[in-house]
């Protein structure tokens, strides 16, 4: 009788301990999950930025005999499985770059350099996501890594290949104007949003910028 009582008490004790362990683990999972919800990933800083031009250094590195650039009409990011149409965009009256509404389309800032040109930066921007249409094609930029391939195609079928050299994340107020430079060696800059999302303003706090240089 006493043995049976001891066995029952031991069983209850084991069960209570297991219950405590289960509750503790569950609470930890919930706490960690909620913490991740409230804290976006750390800002991205990968690779080395292309060297800016200086007055004492020639800024044209491509032969003057190389072809002039082409107006980009298609963007491909093979590592991210992205292929998106490119449309020309400009700066709006409010001073912000006008990004195409559809997150499946990206914009070429048309005052910037042509793709495959001999100088300056070609600027492409696109939505990371949209309230109406979900994730954007440039949401893959956060996962871009140095060495990734980027391809721009022109209307006449010309293909210009680039390799990612750096990924940076800036608060929007600190986006360097140099990313829009029309002088210096040729490079490609891809811009989208990142960081924390402000639900009230419906805007992100940061910009993710991918720098790529021509290859081949």
């Amino acid at each position: 009788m006493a043995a049976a009582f001891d066995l029952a008490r031991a069983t209850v004790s084991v069960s209570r301990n297991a219950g405590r362990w289960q509750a503790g683990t569950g609470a930890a999972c919930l706490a960690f999950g909620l913490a991740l919800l409230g804290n976006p990933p750390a800002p991205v800083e990968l690779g080395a930025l292309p060297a800016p031009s200086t007055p004492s250094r020639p800024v044209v590195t491509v032969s003057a005999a190389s072809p002039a650039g082409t107006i980009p009409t298609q963007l491909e990011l093979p590592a991210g499985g992205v292929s998106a149409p490119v449309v020309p965009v400009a700066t709006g009256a409010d001073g912000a770059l006008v990004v195409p509404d559809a997150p499946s389309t990206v914009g070429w800032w048309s005052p910037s350099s042509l793709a495959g040109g001999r100088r300056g930066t070609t600027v492409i921007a696109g939505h990371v996501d949209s309230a109406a249409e979900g994730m954007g094609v440039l949401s893959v930029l956060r996962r871009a890594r140095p060495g990734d391939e980027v391809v721009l195609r022109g209307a006449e079928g010309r293909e210009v290949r680039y390799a990612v050299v750096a990924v940076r994340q800036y608060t929007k107020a600190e986006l360097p104007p140099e990313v829009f430079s029309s002088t210096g060696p040729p490079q490609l800059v891809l811009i989208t949003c990142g960081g924390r999302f402000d639900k009230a303003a419906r805007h992100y706090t940061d910009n993710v910028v991918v720098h790529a240089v021509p290859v081949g």
Partner: protein
Amino acid sequence: MSTRPIRQAVAGTIACLALLGAVSCANPQTAPPLPPAVPGAPAAPPAAPADAGDAQPAVLGAAGQGAAGLAALGALGASNGVGAPVRDLGSQLAEDGKALAEQMNEVAAAQGVTLGDQPSSEQQAMLADLQSRSGEQFDQAWLRAAGEALQQARDAANAVLASPDATEEAKAAARAALAKLDALGASLRQATASAGASTPAQVDAGTGGQAALGDQALTVIALLTAGAFLLGGALWRRRSI
């Protein structure tokens, strides 16, 4: 938009280029390093006494190339521009750039130096980019190129003002040129903004918020689901004991 201030201030750009040549030629032994007069024009090297004879042709060459580049940029704007500011400013740049190139050639010839009449490779790259465009996209890129030329000229004038070796006459000319360049800057900024070619102040490229969770979405969902199951199980176990 009135283009008169633009026309007046183009003279400032040209005056700056001429000023660069004048300062460099007048003081070949002591001239400070000069920034390029137009985008891509190679910077004039510092003129050390030992190689002053070599530096002077280089300075003249840079100024001559700068003038040739301005003339070519102007001619392209005058012929291909669709907006009045681009056509007007282009005509003026073409005329004055050509006149300056001739002037620089005379100065160079007097010193036994022959100047080329071709823009630098950087300027040629800029012109090739412009020639591949048409319509609004041409005007946008052209206005930005003109803006670069303006900035280079301002830098040059400021370098003269900062130089202890520049004469008072040269500094007075630099101040006058800067005043005109400021007037040009205001008009050019207005034309550039109207054409949608100003450097963007910001890029707003996300309105949904889905990407904020982004790469962590699966982890977060798994953690929250596991936590809820474990807590639920613990409560059920406690009740059943």
